């Protein structure tokens, strides 16, 4: 078991006893991955932050029901998936892909604009996918999760993961074909 896993387990056990300090440690440990996941699903920083916050609030409420046998991050990603879907449904999926106000980097203004355009085109293509496919492609590409881990997290069969992933990649290739050629 890795050092992080041991630390996580200890924090989870304390959080299950109602220790808020331990829970804040868990938030610190996982907020980056969860925020990045929700951002890639929504494409809007404000909605992504709301979804990530909701994820941790729900995790706090239900941490007593979490069983230590399963990896904590899988459980957390499942909550993140449900929270994001719920938030998107409330907004009827009319979430604008924002320009992700990025700070000027050391690159030239042209490169900066080019980078922003590329990020936006990738995000637009992701947002056109059904929510479940979005989650699967984001978990695979950005969270580096295996098919089995995705299946367990989303509680769907492995075959569904494979077929949805294939369909998602096919749709993304179609949408991003010009950008792929430039790259």
């Amino acid at each position: 078991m890795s050092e992080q896993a041991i630390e996580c387990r200890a924090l989870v056990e304390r959080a299950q006893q109602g220790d808020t300090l331990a829970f804040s440690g868990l938030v610190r440990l996982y907020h980056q991955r969860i925020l990045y996941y929700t951002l890639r699903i929504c494409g809007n920083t404000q909605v992504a932050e709301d979804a990530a916050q909701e994820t941790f609030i729900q995790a706090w409420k239900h941490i007593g029901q979490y069983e230590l046998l399963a990896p904590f991050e899988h459980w957390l990603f499942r909550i993140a998936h449900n929270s994001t879907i719920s938030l998107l449904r409330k907004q009827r999926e009319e979430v604008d892909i924002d320009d992700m106000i990025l700070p000027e980097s050391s690159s030239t203004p042209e490169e900066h604009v080019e980078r922003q355009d590329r990020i936006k085109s990738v995000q637009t293509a992701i947002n056109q996918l059904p929510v479940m496919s979005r989650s699967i492609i984001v978990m695979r590409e950005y969270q580096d999760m295996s098919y089995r881990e995705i299946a367990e997290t989303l509680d769907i069969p492995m075959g569904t993961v494979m077929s949805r992933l294939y369909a998602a990649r096919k749709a993304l290739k179609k949408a991003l074909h010009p950008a792929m050629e430039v790259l």
Partner: protein
Amino acid sequence: MKAHVKELLQALYDGELDESLVPVVEKHLSTCEACQAELQEIGQLSSLMHADDAWLMDTLVVTQREDAFVNEVMHQIHSGGIEQRSFFDSLLWKSIPAGLLGVWLFIQVGWLVLQGLLTMNVIPLTSVKNGWLNSTLDTLRRFSTSADANPVAPQNWGGNLQEMLVDRLHIDFLFDMLVNPALITTLIVAVMFTSWFALWWLHQEKRYKKSQFQKNGG
């Protein structure tokens, strides 16, 4: 090229292909240009998706946001009085009384309907009770008449008991009182509901004490 073949290519790219299939797919790849192009496209797509990954992560997520995010979450938990939920807050736990009531009603109505049918003689009374009655009487007859098997038993004890049991009124009364599912269900449901309420009450007490302890800065 069929979709399931492409799924194999995808699994190969993701490192998820079954080891036994890897040589087969690789051999096919060496001769099939369409599959080579497909595999290359998967790689290109992945590269495009990750092109600005690290930069985006660094600039958008990490910088100066960690503390603000953690503080906001913890503030919401504290100020909103958000408590941890347990099994006692789950829908399953809350639906137990409704389930008990449903079972109780079902048995009561079923028993009433059966009684009605028996009264109207739609179902002959004997067909319901005779099986139980005959087997019980046979057992008692065997027990009470076998003096050798039980020398302590008085010789006439069995006979008196038989006479009593043969009396149909006594049998019906005994049957209705002891085997009446409506009565048994009512008792079981009452015990289960009382237990459910007691557990819920204890949980509420415990939660209240905990919240008081936290309020007092414990």
